[in-house]
């Protein structure tokens, strides 16, 4: 019986000695060598990739691909800014470069993180509730925000706005009310164009979605016009002629997602590309788009539109079959010089994604594991004083 007692007490001791908790360590970046053919040629030093991280996970992370060494650095922000509590934040929604600074729009953390573009060290933080996308013009940053305590009328209390920020002081100077849940933002010829979505209002009731692009005069910073486009607008980008391309998410039910062309002189939609579009990138006169819906069922999921002729010139720019094995194609960018195509696969949104690099012929060069929901790109110029992209 003594033996039995000993066995029981040994069991207790074993349990208590089971592996213990250590200090929680900051996560450092990880390096993966990807590209044996890396070279120092060209005007760009590398590529930043912002991973969104699923909402509530606080897993927005920043990756950097070094063109010169061929090294892919996963999660660089925390290492460079170890003293920031809870790291970069929750849901990275946009990433842009302006001057020598990197601006990361962290949606659910209600802030824009301003970093040195070379060191990714924090320069400052701009507080904007539910911020979505950012663009720049002549020393000012313009940020769309889904909501804020600006509009008092209870009927309109949910209306979004565009915030104007002085990039020298990082102070919010002014706000211009636009439509409900404004998303994409672009600048062309003295005007700011904002894609209103109404995404919070339309779920279940399609007619509640927004269907307009707001036009804001930069000179007065007041909304001057609304351009009727389609339900639930998402992204907007300016092409080389100053015209605008805007995509609609649609209502996910009856009406399909589409890509629309806005003539910036007529300030009206003058053309439509009959393809559902979840994301796109413009390089030169080529607009590279990622489709929407079932990947396997669409041959034109990865298409190129000529922005001058506004015609689909290539309905399958990934040529080596890699596209068939993708799960959730999400982010896209095209190298301005080499025309290499970078596409991310966001997978199931709750686990790490993958970044694919294709050459201009659409053949895969390499692929690498990223953070969760890899999404937004910025090319880092070698000479930082050159004009922003």
């Amino acid at each position, binding site marked *: *019986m003594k033996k*039995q*007692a000993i066995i*029981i007490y040994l069991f*207790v001791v074993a*349990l*208590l000695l*089971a*592996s213990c*908790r*250590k*200090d*929680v*360590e900051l996560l450092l970046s990880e390096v993966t060598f990807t590209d044996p053919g890396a070279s120092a040629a060209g005007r760009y030093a590398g590529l930043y990739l912002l991973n969104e991280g699923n909402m*509530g*996970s*606080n897993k927005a992370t920043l990756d950097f691909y070094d063109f010169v060494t061929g090294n892919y650095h996963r*999660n660089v922000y925390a290492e460079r800014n*170890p003293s*920031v*509590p*809870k*790291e970069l*934040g*929750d849901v990275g929604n946009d990433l842009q470069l302006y001057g020598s600074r990197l601006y990361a729009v*962290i949606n*659910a*953390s*209600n*802030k824009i993180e301003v970093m040195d573009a070379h060191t990714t060290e924090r320069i400052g*933080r701009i507080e904007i509730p*539910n911020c979505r996308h950012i663009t720049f013009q002549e020393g000012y940053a313009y940020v769309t925000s*889904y*909501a*804020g*305590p600006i509009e008092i009328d209870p009927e309109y*209390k*949910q209306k979004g706005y565009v915030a104007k920020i002085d990039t020298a002081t990082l102070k919010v100077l002014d706000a211009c009310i636009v439509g409900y849940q404004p998303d994409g933002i672009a600048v062309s010829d003295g005007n700011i164009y904002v894609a209103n979505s109404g*995404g919070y209002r339309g*779920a*279940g009731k399609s007619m509640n979605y927004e269907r307009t692009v707001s036009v804001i005069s930069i000179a007065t910073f007041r909304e001057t016009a609304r351009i009727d486009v389609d339900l639930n607008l998402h992204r907007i980008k300016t092409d080389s002629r100053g015209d605008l391309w805007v995509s609609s*998410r649609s209502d*996910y039910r009856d009406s399909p*997602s589409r890509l629309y062309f806005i003539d910036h002189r007529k300030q009206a939609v003058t053309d439509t590309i009959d393809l559902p579009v*979840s994301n796109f990138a413009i390089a030169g006169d080529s607009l590279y788009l990622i489709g*929407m819906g079932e990947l396997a069922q669409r041959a034109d999921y990865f298409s190129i539109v000529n922005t001058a002729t506004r015609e689909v010139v290539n309905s399958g720019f990934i040529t080596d079959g890699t596209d068939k*094995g*993708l*799960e959730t194609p999400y982010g896209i960018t095209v190298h301005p010089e080499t025309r290499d195509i970078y596409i991310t*696969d966001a*997978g*199931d*949104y*709750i*686990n*790490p994604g*993958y970044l694919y690099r294709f050459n201009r012929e659409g053949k895969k060069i390499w*692929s690498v*594991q990223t*953070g969760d929901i890899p999404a937004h790109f910025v090319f880092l110029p070698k000479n930082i004083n050159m004009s922003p992209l």
Partner: protein
Amino acid sequence: MNSFKLILFCVAAVILPGIAHAARPAASLQPVAGGMDLADSLYLPEVVVSAKVQREIIPAQTLSGNELKGLNSFSVADAIRYFSGIQIKDYGGIGGLKTVDIRSMGSNHMGVFYDGIQLGNAQNGQIDLGKYSLDNLESVTLYNGQKSEIFQSARDFGTSGSIYLRTRYPRFESDKSHNLRGILRSGSFGLINPSLLWEQKLSTSLSATFNTEWVSANGKYAYRYRRIHPVTHEVVYDTTATRENGDVNALRLEGGLHGFVPSGNWKLKTYFYSSERGIPGAIVNNVWKRSQRQWDQNFFTQGSFLKSVSPRYDILINTKYAHDRMRYLNPDTTLMYIDNSFTQQEAYLSLVNKYALLSNWDISLAADWQWNGLQSDLDGFREPTRYTTLIAAATAADFGRVRLQGSILGSWIYESAAGDEQRRSAREQFTPALFLTYKPLDSHNLHIRAFYKQSFRMPTFNDLYYTDIGNVDLDPEESHQYNLGALYDKSFNRGVIRHWEIKGDAYLNRVTNKIIAVPKGNGMYRWMMTNLGQAEIKGVDLSASAISEVHREWQLNLRMTYTHQQARDLTRRPNKELEKITYGGQIAYIPWHSGSLVAGLQHRLWQLNYSFIYVGERYRSSANTPENYEQPWYTSDLSLSRSFTHDRFSSKLTLEVNNLFSQDYEVVLNYPMPKRNYKLTLTVEI
């Protein structure tokens, strides 16, 4: 074809016991659940039935009496942590959501039964065990597979694992016609928690009980995030903040009637719970406070009637009506303004027949009928209605050394939903279960047991119909469980150790057609529910307990559990590179090792309790990568109580310290748990 299955089963049920030898009286397999107390010895059996073979053949894990009271547990969720094979998802604090996952099959596979009848939530399948108070509970029991008894409703055969909560049964000492008990708790989190119990004997065969409890807490607690640089080992940040918006205000009212009829009994129970709480939310960079609110109103009334119609034939009737309202408000305009209400209703009727064919062979047939409805003011919500018919045929046989139970459950589910187009669907499912126990030695109390069980869980109304996320084409999620285990116990009349018991089970679970959310485009609602998931769980549950008299009038009770689980995500993915990251990975939040220890020391009127919980390292997703790694956590809770006896009443004062070493930990990512906290309880019984 299905009637063929039934016939096949019935034939098997008839033939099987025929192979047997002569009957022996069934040896009691009831394990001694920790320390016996006065309540247990006064316990009036609720089920007085004629035959003897229908007892549970696989003993469950039970917490009851003083052992349950000594656990520093505030809610059922806190107590359940001391069972093996269980994982709790705890979002922190008094008002935070707490759900249970049994053997890693997912919380929707768990059935929770309140006084014998299942608590339903057709909307999301989740039962928040943090809402169920231990105040009025006499026992909490966990069954793997099912309660291995055949005299039960068809619904009892339907879940992969079940928790039975049994409320206090009124019993009166010979000279008393009523019992009164008042409890007042207070402590950290701004907690004020009074409760009152009144039990009245109305006649020799009828008694009434009334119980009410109010919980009010501001839910505030300190938490801390601290990070160390892995190379320099310097502290890079160390932030302590106060958890906000975790307040709760809840009222519970419960009344019941208990009656006896010749060779039978009946009970009637009405339950009402109303609460308002803050939803504390995830702590992320730059967001340290949230403002979401939730209101709940749960009402149910249920009755059961049990009678031995003849020495061979028993019947049991259960019925229930439930009405639940939930309002969720997110006033935070920086995220998404939401104000939605949901109303759920359930009506339930069950009839169970048991017939003793021989003295060692019983058969039973149970038929349940259930209606569920859900209404919402959410735009685009398609208000669904579900009719469920369950028929369970079961048999139990006792051959002395070997005891067997087999059951087959047929489920017929018919559903319709309003909306753009009227949607109707009908499903039919048959799920068998087989339980077996074997006692190889006459001289030793060793029992070897095994079971196989197949079960399924229906997609919830949210899975099917939630605006823009729901997928009406979902199939039920299925589980297959294989279990092999043994139990050994020994009692002594003298010496330090008076009783000890050890039991262990090894199991393999397969979950197929697992309902998981997958991305759907770039919208606000970025998800869609699918049946793509697969999981395989291999595990070992061990538990041991001992009752010892270490010195005269010094009683020490020990209870230990250990769980090892390898829970692998076997979900196939379209992208093979991504599949490599998650395939075969340990499922989110399932530790490889976990365990608990409870020690209770009793000396005359004093009682000291120590409880320890260990949850080993685990990952926050099936991508078992460094960024998803979560360290082990372990907490020590201590309580000291003293009883006082007076002329006309008795009282007890208890002081609790929880998280004694003030560990900073998270059970769920970005939901910090409280540091050290205290509670003081005064109980007065008349």
